[in-house]
């Protein structure tokens, strides 16, 4: 049914490049941490080098995140406002605490590598054991954050957090591969193992994406709009998913995750401005 002239029924979320970059780097940091945690827990030959590389990459990426959020909020103390309460019913509040925890654990994991004294009372395995579920939570929450909204594209399907989780783990693994290549700290065997892990996560991402797209149905229309289509199809799917499945391309896998975040956030803004989509979305009781 036609609504009130052409006025949108919702306000667009004013989330720009800094939030998109945060969802991407935060998710990738969580993915890299998970790889590091899994390698530390196994701790066989070659795992130490992978774990060191992964925790280093996770730390570098996660420490950029608060800066990105502060640049969105405008003033540093505004980040702290989120930490004055513990309110897990708000995904954003839960995420702020998870970011704090993941940052602390990433730094701790790197520090235990450098200092034998620290390693004695904070074994890396303990850091990995606590950090593994936290990293998985973080990778998931970035999708729940968008899903907990009135925007049809974001709220239509619970596959969105699954998609973001898979994408974060794939791009996190790719980030570890990139760090390994840059520092030459992981041997050939190790790099091939990382490549396998990246491919497994990317395959899962492809399945999650297909599931999400089929579930959002007509609410996915903004993904085909002019400002999103190429980034989504060529960037997120072509470079981020298809290419890394067939050739060794961690850079594209990592970059594709950014294209996916961009596509979903920008298409979500368009979705909020689509009056008929929203009135259709709320037509029937859940």
């Amino acid at each position, binding site marked *: 049914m036609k*609504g009130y*002239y052409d006025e949108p029924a919702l306000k667009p979320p004013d989330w720009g490049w800094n939030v998109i970059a945060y969802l991407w780097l935060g998710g990738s940091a969580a993915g890299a941490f998970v790889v590091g945690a899994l390698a530390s827990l196994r701790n066989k030959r070659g795992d130490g080098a992978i774990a060191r590389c992964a925790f280093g990459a996770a730390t570098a990426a996660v420490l950029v995140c608060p800066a990105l959020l502060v640049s969105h909020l405008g003033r540093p103390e505004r980040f702290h406002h989120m930490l004055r309460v513990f309110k897990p019913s708000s995904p954003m*509040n839960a995420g702020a605490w998870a970011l704090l925890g993941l940052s602390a654990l990433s730094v701790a994991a790197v520090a235990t590598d450098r200092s034998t004294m620290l390693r004695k009372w904070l074994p890396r395995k303990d850091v990995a054991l606590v950090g593994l579920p936290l990293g998985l939570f973080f990778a998931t929450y970035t*999708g729940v954050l968008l899903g907990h*909204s009135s925007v049809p594209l974001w709220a239509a399907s619970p596959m969105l957090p699954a998609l973001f989780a898979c994408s974060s783990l794939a791009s996190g693994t790719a980030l570890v591969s990139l760090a390994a290549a840059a520092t030459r700290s992981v041997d050939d*065997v190790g790099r091939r193992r990382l490549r396998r892990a990246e491919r497994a996560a990317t395959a899962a991402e492809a399945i999650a994406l297909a599931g999400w797209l089929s579930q959002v149905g007509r609410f996915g229309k903004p993904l085909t709009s002019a400002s999103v289509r190429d980034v989504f199809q060529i960037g997120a799917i072509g470079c981020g998913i298809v290419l890394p499945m067939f050739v060794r391309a961690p850079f594209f896998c990592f970059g594709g995750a950014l294209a996916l975040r961009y596509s979903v956030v920008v298409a979500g803004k368009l979705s909020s401005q689509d009056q008929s989509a929203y009135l259709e979305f*709320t037509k029937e009781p859940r």
Partner: protein
Amino acid sequence: MTQSGKSVGFFTDSSLCIGCKACEVACKQWNQLPADGYEFTGMSYDNTGGFSATTWRHVQFIEQPDSRGGVRWLFNSDVCKHCADAPCENACPTAAIIRTEFDTVYVRQDVCNGCGYCVAACPFGVLEVQHAPPDDAAGTAHKCTLCYDRLADGMEPACAKVCPTDSIQFGDLDELHEHAKRRLEQLHERGETRAQLYGEPEGHELGGLHSLFLLLDEPERYNLPRHPRSPKRAMPSFYLTGLAAAFAVAGAIGLALRSNPS
């Protein structure tokens, strides 16, 4: 006199609205909200368009062809719904958005960090983050306060006070509900068969609205969602689906790391 601890709200009876916009003006005057400029929308007599950080009441002008070849006017003064279970309040990561002692929804400006999550959560497009001088980058979210400052002094909200036809009524929520039902019956008896109440608590995902409306047509005509959704409701399934995928893929990564490819 308004008592704290009682649920209060608005009942906006659109059948009485004459589109004078006194509520919009009174709201701006009392709350010291700046004008939004002179923009010509080209749609009916509505140059306000919708809510914004500085527009908390919005009078809608709906022109419909009637059976005699003329035009019937529908007016409605839209406002924040002060939902019983408010999505903005649930989303707010700083707990800046609270329920007051009058059971209304209020944004505490000194706590709000301008994240904009309430904007995405609101099912009615009410909230907006204001980015304006002198602090362009650091805006905060704004919406109707239900004149919290006036309530505290025992006065009714400015829009209800000024409304010349009593289309906007303020008061005890239970009484407003009763009044709304009586008024609806009256209109039905007079042949306004499409008249309906909007925001009743029965079967409402948000637990009902503290801003009730009596509409003369389907809610969609007023840009109101027929069945507004609570983002909170879907959250458990979102977390579970996401975490299930995350743990499964972590398992796959663990296996892939285990194998020693030649």
